[in-house]
């Protein structure tokens, strides 16, 4: 098959909107995953500590503590599902996603817009009754399924020119970022235990961590014998088959950046590709195994900073003009 040479220009501001649209939609899914799994699998241990892990993952502890006396399903659920003043709630994310979709309406498919618009209506209509214990899982499922519908509609209908590449890069950046956060908090919570001995680690905690990332069954298949901290970390950071691993998402990001360079002749990818190269060098099985001995958390902070840096590189390179 011959390569199509695309000549239609993409407005720089629209590229940035595509990146953000995907990030916000992906964020809704990740938030729902985290809440759902916390609700389902983290009940047996210290309830408040488990719920508090959600704002910790998102870097929201300060804001959360300012407005809520204690962490529970009701308060954390309210904070992430209903609170429009929380910049990381699904309410904020869907409004921002829809605004970016409006900006891109001449570019995205009608089906994409329609689905986002209807989804927006459903999220905006959520009430405290919807997040009560008997509805909580159903709401999380609705959020996950609707974002997955978005992902599928995007896959099946969005024309694959520049705007698609920026959309996909936004999705992979957000996924990679969310996975590092997930890993970081759980490791943090589990740290005293696994420093003592691997056997003491609560299997339920590992279970919850992997389930939140939708990696539980795949992990079991790769590691039938049990949980080892370095294996879980490798699975989430380096594995190249697991759809939400940092390594896989960065590899996909690299592919899109390279496409923009080779197929469209864009020169804006240089800084991001260099940064990716550096990051790749750190994300090896060997290195991660070493880090799990106690220096994983600073490393995850570093990866998060690099992911933010990648986003900035992309904006500077393609949208800075």
């Amino acid at each position: 098959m011959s390569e199509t040479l695309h000549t239609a220009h993409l407005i720089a501001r629209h590229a940035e909107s595509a990146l953000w649209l995907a990030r916000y939609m992906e964020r809704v899914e990740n938030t729902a995953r985290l809440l759902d799994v916390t609700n389902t699998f983290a009940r047996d241990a210290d309830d408040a500590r488990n719920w508090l892990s959600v704002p910790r993952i998102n870097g929201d502890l300060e804001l959360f503590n300012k407005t809520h006396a204690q962490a529970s399903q009701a308060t954390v659920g309210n904070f992430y599902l209903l609170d429009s003043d929380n910049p990381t709630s699904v309410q904020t994310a869907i409004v921002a996603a829809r605004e970016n979709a409006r900006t891109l309406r001449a570019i995205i498919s009608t089906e994409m817009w329609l689905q986002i618009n209807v989804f927006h209506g459903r999220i905006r209509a959520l009430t405290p009754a919807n997040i009560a214990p008997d509805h909580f899982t159903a709401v999380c499922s609705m959020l996950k399924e609707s974002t997955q519908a978005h992902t599928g509609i995007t896959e099946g209908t969005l024309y694959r020119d520049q705007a698609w590449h920026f959309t996909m890069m936004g999705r992979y950046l957000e996924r990679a970022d969310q996975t590092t956060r997930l890993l970081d908090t759980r490791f943090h919570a589990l740290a005293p235990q696994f420093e003592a001995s691997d056997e003491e680690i609560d299997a339920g905690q590992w279970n919850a961590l992997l389930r939140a990332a939708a990696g539980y069954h795949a992990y079991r298949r790769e590691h039938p014998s049990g949980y080892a901290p370095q294996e879980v970390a490798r699975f989430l950071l380096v594995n190249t088959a697991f759809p939400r691993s940092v390594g896989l998402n960065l590899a996909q990001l690299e592919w899109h950046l390279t496409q923009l360079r080779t197929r469209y002749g864009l020169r804006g990818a240089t800084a991001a590709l260099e940064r990716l190269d550096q990051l790749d060098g750190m994300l090896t099985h060997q290195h991660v195994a070493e880090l799990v001995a106690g220096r994983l958390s600073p490393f995850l902070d570093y990866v998060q900073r690099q992911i933010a840096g990648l986003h900035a590189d992309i904006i500077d390179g393609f949208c800075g003009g």
Partner: protein
Amino acid sequence: MPVPTGSQTQSQTQSQPHGVLQGYDPGGFFCELLRPGQPTHPALSLLLSRLSALPIESLRRRAADAERDLLERGITFTVYSDATAIDRILPFDLIPRVLTPPEWQQIETGVIQRVRALNMFLYDIYHERKILKDGIIPSELVLGNAGYCQAMVGFDVPFNTYVHVCGTDIVRDETGKFMVLEDNARTPSGVAYVVENRHMTLRVFSDLMTGLKVRGVDEYGLRLHNAMAEIAPPGVSDPQVVVLSPGIFNSAYFEHVFLAREMGIPLVEGRDLTVESGKVWMRTTAGLAPVHTIYRRIGDDFLDPDAFNPDSMLGVRGLIEAWRRGTVAIANAVGTGVADDKAVYAYMPRIIKYYLSEEPILPNVDTRICAEPDALQYTLDHLAELVVKPVAESGGYGLIIGPHASRAELEDFRARLIANPSNYISQETLKLSVSPTLCEDGVKPRHIDLRPFAVTGKDTWVLPGGLTRVALRAGTLVVNSSQGGGSKDTWVLA
């Protein structure tokens, strides 16, 4: 009870007695579907019999489908919607408005004639001003007009086309006669609804159209793009056209999206464009890329803070200078507002005759220019029957509708009119035509108008159809969306 011609009566009574047209009575108004006294057309008869056979429940179900569809697309506001629904579409009425081939022929040729005259008028008043020297229209009315743009004096535009997109508001009186109510020569909106309404009909009511030859409306984007390419600066083989919008919070943003999609071109805002080295560029992922034609959907005043309103954040600094250098084309041209002014409108029949030596194919609504003694006398004698409008005002301020005014109001107005007659025009109070429209209490006659869209580059093309707006409230003549107006699909029969 109503009912038009013999054959139509039969089909109505023979078919379902509970059809949607049961009890429909247009009274003394011209009904666009029943058309008393007009030659019948097979397609119209078929449409009428289909509607007569359709249970009202079916129409209501389809209307509910259409409404839900609009809501999901985020292009409607309804009682269910929240205050953040910023895309506003006219509510959609499913019963189409139909135009026969001879009717369309008159509208099409009439609109083309009018656009030609408007463009010749604009060329003249920005060059030799012959029409002013010949005393056809008062100089001060043109040169002192708020829409007259000094920056345009002596400036040439490609093909002498100023009004690239024109929306002509047309109404029909109780005899079915077409008349122009208003020209929209700046940035007329509504064309997106013409196409979207057709798509909606096909989605929820395609069986109504089966076998009927209705002219398509899908060509608009292609035609508009061709016209925009024609006016691009010479020497550019594949000109870059963009749609310039004020942004996502503008009430017509839905239409800006539509235009960009239909033309396959970028939808930009002022901040996406820049002027460097006397040329206009857009900021893309590959850096600055040249722009050759701008179809702008923002007003003259906001186009360029250097040339016009210095506070405008929507425009592009230096755009007008680049335009004057001929490196970029702008549609519609700057300074067309003078041509669709209310006072200038009154002179349109004379303007057409002056430039084209032709009678207007589409007459104006009978308008008297009170500056003229005979007209003033007629107006004063018939004040209680007429609509009198101040020429300098807009938005209905200072207007009087004779039949609705009290005796005291009329006397007060009479004094003002005598004091300053040249500030006023007067028109007969119109009995607008009606179309069967789904209302809460069944299908009722409601007043409608028509806005066809004419696209002009080198030549003029008129989209077969147009925006039919309908006044959803009983008795009201106002079809504006803010006044409870809706819209209908407009079928031009082939």
